[in-house]
């Protein structure tokens, strides 16, 4: 077998062998009644549940609620993060003032903010949005800072040699050079916003902090509460799919925005 000459479709076919085998095994075990029906459900059951979920609108509804929440929180957090990151990246004084504080606060795991935020803002939208914005803030600020701070020295020298004024140096050298790093921050912050939304909804939905709510997190929390494995699998699948789709969206957007390549 000469594996080195495989083309893309061949690779995809080979990649699908194992999952297909697993699904077949899963179905067979189910057919012979070898599975504990409470915990392991059949593939058919998952399909049926997803059909029902779409028919009664519970899955699309939950997804949209989560997505909207993530986008609102992300917009707020990422904009503030961008402004802060650029400021810290450009000004030495601002860096000295804020960098240590931001670096320390960043170390606190996002979900560790929940008890505090829920005490201050309750369990409603304000708390969730604040948490998501907080999560989106740090990667965006870090990306913008790194981008503005790490402009390659040769490019800065070009700006000096060409006698560019401060404004032209920023718009023609610093910001273009920072764009890749800013986009990386954007991608990471969107990812964190999406997961943070889910986590907040789930945590509140489990009733560990009083309250319920809507969204994919709450859907999954309820599914787990009633031990509906089919719904759990479906929700997890959706969570992953939307996360990957968001990611792809940002990457596609980045490719369009950056037609150039660094030397």
């Amino acid at each position, binding site marked *: 077998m000469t594996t080195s000459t495989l083309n893309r479709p061949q690779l995809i076919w080979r990649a699908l062998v194992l999952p297909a085998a697993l699904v077949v095994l899963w179905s067979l075990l189910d057919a012979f009644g070898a599975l504990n029906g409470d915990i392991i459900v059949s593939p058919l059951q998952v399909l049926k549940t997803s059909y029902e979920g779409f028919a009664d609108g519970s899955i699309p509804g939950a997804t949209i609620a989560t997505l909207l929440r993530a986008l609102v929180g992300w917009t707020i957090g990422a904009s503030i993060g961008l402004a802060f990151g650029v400021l810290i990246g450009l000004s030495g004084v601002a860096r000295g003032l804020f960098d240590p504080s931001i670096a320390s606060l960043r170390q606190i795991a996002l979900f560790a903010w929940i008890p505090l935020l829920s005490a201050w803002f309750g369990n409603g939208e304000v708390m969730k949005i604040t948490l998501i914005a907080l999560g989106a803030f740090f990667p965006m600020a870090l990306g913008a800072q790194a981008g503005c701070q790490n402009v390659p020295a040769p490019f800065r020298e070009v700006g*000096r040699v*060409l006698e*560019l004024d401060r404004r*032209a140096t920023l718009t*023609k050298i610093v910001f273009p050079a920072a764009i890749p790093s800013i986009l990386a921050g954007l991608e990471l912050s969107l990812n964190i916003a999406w997961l943070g939304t889910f986590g907040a909804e789930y945590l509140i939905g489990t009733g560990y902090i009083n309250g319920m709510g809507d969204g994919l997190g709450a859907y999954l929390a309820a599914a787990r509460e009633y031990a509906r494995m089919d719904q759990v699998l479906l929700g997890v699948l959706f969570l992953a799919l939307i996360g990957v789709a968001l990611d792809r969206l940002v990457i596609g957007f980045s490719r369009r925005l950056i037609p*150039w*390549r*660094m030397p």
Partner: protein
Amino acid sequence: MADALTLSRPKTVEVGSVQISDVSKTFRVEGRTVHALDDVSLAIASGEFISIVGPSGCGKSTLLRFLAGLDGPDSGRIAVDGEVIDRPSLKRGIVFQDHRLLPWFSVEKNIALSLHSLAGSEAEKRERVQYLIDLVGLSGFEKALPHELSGGMSQRAAIARGLAPRPPLLLLDEPLGALDSLTRSYLQDELLAIWEREKSTVVMVTHDVEEAIYLSDRVVVMEPRPGRIAKIFEVSGKRPRHRDDPDFVTIRREITDLLAHRRD
């Protein structure tokens, strides 16, 4: 701001003369003091093409960075037309070895960037950019991004960017160092043609002795530790020169002998 420069008219006054007097510079490298330049003096006349050769560490690039105004000496004085250099200026164009075209701008915009801080109408600047693109033979590549260009083409664009503000003094830091030998000798001839047309003073740092003799009026040979001028060679002979000319061969022998001798 260098608003005194004129974009469209060739200059009539003799400018671009350089006076380097008693320039010294030391660096700290891994706890040791390195004398990059030790009491270097050199006068360059207006319109002269001068090359600096020498082994690495002899301070030739440091000297060029001083001339550009990117760094300054510890002691001594460097002046262009009697004016002491204290910062970079468009009156002294520089072309780096690693072309340093901004990757996010097209060839056209990269060249236009060197006119950004100059007075003059947009139309005038556009005309100047187009003239330079034609001059360096990049017509048809105006909209190309740097990563789409070959090494030789990038270097031409970089030369055009250095020439755009009509600097009386053009500094070349191993401008052809990264190119293959065919492209290199081709661009050497172009460089000569450009120099003859633009009438600027040129200071070029290079590793290539032959290139230095082929192009220059004078070749400055430097030696390292401490960085000093070992000897200055006058190259007479009309251009274009021939590399197998007896005079050419003699000077090349002398310079290579000197370099081999100094390299301990």
